[in-house]
């Protein structure tokens, strides 16, 4: 019997994501987000997602929120650093049109670890003295039975699916990040299903030659999709930089509903493949972002 390969297409991987699921998205701030899969989710009009992000989320969350795919988001930060606020998150939060599970960075870590360990909660001191405890009733203050300290219990959050973007993997799902792994490995441990997009699929021999670089082992990976430039407009660590031109266009388009809809039509709904999306960005700009 042969070892099972896990290579699949964006379209097929997209079918693993269904209405109402808890979806974890890898990457951090403006880096390594699996944007091609995010666009696939928007194209397929998936609804009522509960979004779990890294300790800083950016355009990957904002795009799904703007397209109406998200009911609830748990994220300690949604923004673009120097690029500014994320417009759909801000607008919908101010209008009360999205539920926010208000948490801090350590709560993200505790909730994913509790899920990975199958524990009812993990304790932290983080949150004491803040208003998080008033607005997020899932965070419960308790007296610890060992030292009698006042602590906060953080319940698990178990993603149905984690979608990640890394730089390379083999066909079996051994994943290697070229730069930061951020929290991708922990999301993979916590989630029921794991889809990894990569810039490059390499033969197993390449992984065997450098096993210390493997960040996620194949047994917890369900699908591998080869998507060069799949993190665009975000950076893919060590492969290409973030596309500030696209970000500005996005932030401008999000200023009103009509221009945002035109933006989604242009880059997502009227596009039938990732290659067609890249054609719209253009070879010149893509090569300009390349770090190779």
């Amino acid at each position, binding site marked *: 019997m042969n070892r099972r390969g896990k290579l699949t297409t964006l379209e097929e991987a997209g079918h693993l994501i269904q209405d109402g699921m808890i979806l974890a998205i890898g990457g951090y701030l403006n*880096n390594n987000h699996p944007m091609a899969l995010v666009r696939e989710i928007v194209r397929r009009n998936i609804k009522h997602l509960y979004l779990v992000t890294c300790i800083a989320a950016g355009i990957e969350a904002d795009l799904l929120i703007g397209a109406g795919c998200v009911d609830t988001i748990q994220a300690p*930060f*949604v923004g673009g650093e120097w690029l500014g606020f994320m417009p759909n*998150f801000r607008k919908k939060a101010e209008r009360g049109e999205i539920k926010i599970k*208000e948490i801090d960075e350590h709560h993200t870590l505790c909730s994913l670890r509790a899920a990975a360990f199958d524990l009812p909660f993990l304790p932290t001191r983080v949150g004491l003295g803040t208003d998080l405890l008033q607005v997020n009733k899932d965070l419960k203050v308790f007296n610890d039975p060992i030292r009698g300290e*006042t602590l906060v219990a953080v319940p698990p959050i178990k993603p149905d699916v984690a979608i990640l973007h890394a730089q390379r993997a083999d066909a079996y799902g051994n994943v290697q990040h070229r730069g930061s792994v951020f*929290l991708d490995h922990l999301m993979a441990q916590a989630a029921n299903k794991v889809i990894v997009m990569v810039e490059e699929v390499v033969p197993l021999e390449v992984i065997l030659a450098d096993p210390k670089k493997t960040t996620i082992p194949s047994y917890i990976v369900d699908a591998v999709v080869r998507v060069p430039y799949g993190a665009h407009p975000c950076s893919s660590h060590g492969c290409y930089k973030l596309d500030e031109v696209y970000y500005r266009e996005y932030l401008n388009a999000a200023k009103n509903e009509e221009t945002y809809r035109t933006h989604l039509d242009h880059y997502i709904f009227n596009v039938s493949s990732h290659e067609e999306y890249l054609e719209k960005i253009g070879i010149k700009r893509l090569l300009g972002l390349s770090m190779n």
Partner: protein
Amino acid sequence: MKRLEYSVSELIAIVLSRDLRDGEIGMLGAYSEIPQASIRLAQLTHAPNLSCIYGASGGYNKKGPLCHYVGEYGNLMGAEAVFPLDTILDLVSKRMDFFFAGGFQVDQYGNLNLVCAGSYGKPSLRGPGTAGLAISCSIFKRFYIYLQSHRKQSLVPKVDFVSGAGFVHGFNTRLEQGIPEGGPRLLITPLGVFDFDPDSKRMRLKSLNPGTALDEVIENTGFELMIPDRIPETLPPKEEELRILREDVDPLGFLR
């Protein structure tokens, strides 16, 4: 002596750098060009044994010029190590020395807000989130607050949402809430440097930045500051500090 020209960001970076001690370990978050510069400057001057983790990219003791985006790949180049973010949060739990914080609201006890202005349910402004202020303000032994503008709207009597706890309601209330000892050490704005009264934990003026009048500070602060009898001027950048900052730390001029 000739008068040196420098930007507000350069002044803040230099004032911060002077307060960092040799042998300490600190951390940086996003939007952190100024703190990045202060750490590099300290390492290249009085604190060669100062260490720093870039909380976003996971880089440790990065050398070389400042990067614009904290999470970018360039922030791993020239690092002594690169850690995943869960390892970094574990390291934070060991009580590092210092962190740099900001917020769109800071109050008289050094509590910070990056979540929302107005009521939580119907905010007039929704910010990005707590952004790690809850952990950083509670676990680090001390933190520095810096603001690039000094306005009544951002220096408020009480923040609308506590995303990072400073001295809570003053006096011993921070410890009473179960938060480890620590809290804000300094606030630095374009107008001056501020610290906190050891007893009441209320914010007080420490020094006025060169060219700032006391009235300007009072008019632009939304609460009553403690004002000492004698108010020194913030020591302006020295020629050597500016030279190292510009030549070695920030050759691309992000702070200029």
